[in-house]
């Protein structure tokens, strides 16, 4: 009996051995498992995550990507801030992306990543993200996972309610978090309270290649516009913007801007506004549109004017919906019918009805008043209901204090983050009954469901993006990275799966299934398509050229050497290194660093050309070398530059 067992075990081993022999001889083994193997948050090595999570970097100015459910950080994409790690914002190719009307800016505060949509579904083409500080919107290409375009928003300040997108990627929007004098001029700060400042809603048009241009700015009353969300399906022609400081305070806003029981959701019919472009005035509005063509230096275009119209002069485009209290998120349900306002300073989640809104705008009796010609609709006229509170049921705290933001799943549920009560409230979209509360640690800001802003959410996972980590991670001095908690929401009850730290401050994240993006991700730049004006496509063309005091070194990098063998210049020369990586392999960049350079590392992808400037100020012989470990002979990948008097 025992023998038989051993025998079976041995045969089993042999079969495994045979199978592995077969696969290794036939070249079928190994490789990348494109499918994930999940059960909880653990991903068996070699298998990949099921979902991409795009996290805003907040004050890092970047975007980072985590795999879900493992939480592993896969990449950081530099967007609004320079990135010495790969030369972004320093090299001649990407410097131009950070040009603005205020000059070259090395940093911004990135808040809301938004994926492009077709028919209300993620289409995997682009990711947009806003810069809050000096108003801009960036477009990241999801073939390359690189920032390809940044447009500046003039006549704005604090671009927070941005860059939410229409269901067919017609427009991305920008809104002023901080109202300012428009046009900018020298007036007393106190005049804010007299309504002399303004806000703007900016319609940024996308063409079929994702290129951005400003179609129209609609001037609106001087409140602070906070967050936005666009309609879909029945409400596809509309976008919604929350506001706070309807008190129009200009100082001590924490007290003075928090007086009113209700502020407003601004309902914006962009189709109607589109019809008003022809009657809009051309006004000053200096702004830059920077575009990075594939494997070429970025192009910065300065534009000096925009089209602008006052909301009152475009009737039917703007309405105010009273909503409690200093609402933050405004989010539209997958069917386009529910407009959910999360009342940050209240314990209420007010749910407006799109069909009631349509009735109200045609009913004079539903108008409470007008502000600067903009109709304010009665609260009850558009209200579908308020999410019912259930306190302390079954030992769980269901109170939602400080509701901030709501997303939706594929099972008729909504998920609202509750900043103060540290939980995610799960509620039924039809009955508005609370189903359960999921605890978070600590001070959750935004949350994200996979495809949670689309017409047909993927569901399965929700993440909560926390503001504090406190006792959840090993202490490393006074501050901790912000923490994310992950829940499996595929069953009747949410199940806590995982938590992991993030980079910067993730204000918001969008998640997309891996199958949408993984297959089309580019592996390297094809040398045949390299149209860079300073590319060196073969090693025999590596050379040094002089143009007066300017020297251009055309450098090639391959495994494992640079050409030319030596570079010789004169003191006082301005040297441009143009480095082309001749390799055509996935994940095979070369780095390039020169002694004493003011530019940081150039990380040159296979087939890519990157350039940087170096001042030959000191006589001597200086090394340059590859910084990215590329082969067993990586240490040997080094040459010299000589500076003669």
């Amino acid at each position, binding site marked *: 009996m025992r*023998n038989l067992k051993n*025998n079976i075990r*041995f*045969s089993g081993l*042999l*079969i495994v*051995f*045979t199978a592995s*022999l*077969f696969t*290794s*001889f*036939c*070249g079928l083994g*190994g490789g990348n498992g494109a499918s994930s193997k999940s059960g909880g948050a653990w991903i068996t090595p070699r298998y990949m995550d099921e979902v991409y999570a795009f996290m805003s970097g907040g004050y890092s100015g970047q975007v980072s990507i985590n795999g879900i459910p493992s939480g592993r950080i896969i990449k950081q994409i530099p967007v609004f801030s320079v990135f010495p790690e790969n030369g972004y914002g320093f090299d001649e190719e990407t410097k131009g992306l950070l040009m603005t009307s205020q000059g070259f800016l090395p940093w911004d505060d990135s808040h809301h990543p938004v994926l492009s949509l077709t028919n209300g579904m993620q289409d995997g083409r682009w990711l947009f993200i806003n810069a809050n500080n000096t108003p801009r919107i960036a477009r990241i290409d999801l073939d390359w996972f690189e920032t390809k375009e940044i447009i500046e928003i003039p006549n704005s300040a604090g671009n927070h309610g941005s860059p939410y997108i229409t269901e067919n990627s017609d427009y991305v929007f920008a809104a002023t978090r901080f109202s300012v004098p428009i046009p900018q001029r020298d007036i007393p700060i106190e005049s804010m309270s007299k309504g002399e400042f303004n806000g703007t809603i900016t319609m940024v048009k996308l063409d079929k290649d994702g290129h951005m241009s400003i179609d129209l700015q609609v001037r609106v009353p001087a409140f602070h516009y906070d967050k936005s969300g666009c309609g879909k399906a029945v409400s596809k022609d509309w976008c919604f913007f929350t506001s706070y400081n309807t008190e129009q305070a200009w100082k001590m806003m924490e007290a003075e801007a928090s007086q009113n029981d209700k502020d407003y959701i601004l309902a914006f019919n962009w189709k109607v506004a589109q019809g008003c472009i022809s009657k809009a005035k051309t006004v000053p509005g200096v702004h830059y549109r920077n575009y990075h063509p594939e494997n070429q230096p970025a192009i910065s275009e300065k534009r000096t004017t925009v089209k602008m119209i006052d909301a009152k002069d475009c009737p039917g485009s703007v309405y105010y919906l009273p909503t409690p209290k200093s609402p933050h998120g405004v989010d539209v349900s997958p069917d386009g019918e529910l407009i959910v306002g999360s009342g940050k300073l209240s314990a209420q989640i007010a749910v407006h009805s799109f069909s009631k809104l349509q009735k109200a705008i045609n009913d004079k009796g539903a108008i409470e008043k007008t502000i600067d010609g903009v109709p304010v609709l009665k609260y009850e006229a558009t209200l579908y209901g308020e999410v019912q509170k259930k306190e302390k049921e079954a030992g769980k705290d269901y109170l939602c204090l400080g509701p901030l933001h709501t997303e939706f799943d594929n099972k008729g549920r909504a998920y609202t983050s509750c900043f103060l009560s540290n939980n995610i409230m799960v509620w039924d979209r039809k009955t508005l009954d609370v189903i359960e509360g999921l605890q978070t640690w600590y001070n959750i800001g935004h949350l994200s469901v996979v495809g949670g802003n689309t017409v047909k959410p993927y569901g399965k996972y929700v993440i909560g993006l926390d503001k504090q980590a406190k006792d959840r991670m090993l202490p490393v001095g006074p501050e901790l990275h912000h923490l994310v908690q992950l829940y499996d929401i595929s069953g009747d009850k949410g199940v806590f799966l995982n938590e992991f730290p993030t980079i910067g401050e993730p204000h918001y994240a969008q998640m997309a299934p891996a199958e949408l993006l993984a297959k089309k991700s580019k592996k390297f730049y*094809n*040398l*045949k398509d390299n149209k860079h004006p300073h590319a060196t496509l*073969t*090693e*025999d063309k*590596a*050379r*040094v*050229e*002089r143009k007066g005091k300017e*020297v251009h070194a055309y450098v*090639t990098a*391959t*495994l*494992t*050497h640079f*050409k*030319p*063998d*030596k*570079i*010789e*210049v*004169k003191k006082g*020369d301005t040297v441009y290194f143009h480095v082309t990586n*001749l*390799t*055509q*392999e996935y994940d*095979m960049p070369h780095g390039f660093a020169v002694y004493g350079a003011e530019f940081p590392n150039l990380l040159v992808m296979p*087939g890519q050309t990157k350039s940087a400037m170096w001042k030959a100020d000191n006589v001597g012989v200086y090394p340059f070398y590859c910084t990215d470990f590329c*082969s*067993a*002979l990586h240490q040997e990948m080094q040459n010299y530059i*000589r500076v*003669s008097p």
Partner: protein
Amino acid sequence: MKKISKLSIIIIFAFLLSVSCKKEGIGIGPVESVELGEAIDDAKVEKGAATFKLKCTPCHKITVKHVGPVLKDVTTRRKPEWIMNMILNPEEMIAKDPTAKKLLLENNMMKMVRTGISQDEARDILELFRKVDEGKELPDYIKKLDETPKPPETAEQPAAEKK
């Protein structure tokens, strides 16, 4: 006895699987068979030499050891399919093919990489190798592949070294 026969069946099965799935020595990659003409195709040789100069000379010479191995006589050492697969699929070859693994050790652990050569271009390079291995006097454009390129023109030679 029963036990032994069962084992031997499994072993034979394993052996059969391991040898029957592919031809020996052709490596791993897109090329499963190559048709070689009786005569050398000189047009292919010329194209092969041009591609070799641009894409291969950074690491290879024909009769001289450079970064990678000497390529003279490669057509007698390896099957034509192996040569093309090594050009087109070096990463997997180095990871799995026993000969390629051995070559890595013999060449300072230097991994060969893809340089963007198409299958047609790889076929041209194979023809170049066949030409080299024919044993006849080689045309100049092939001999030149062994030359070390002149050091690049520098922007301005220091005065002291100009002479």
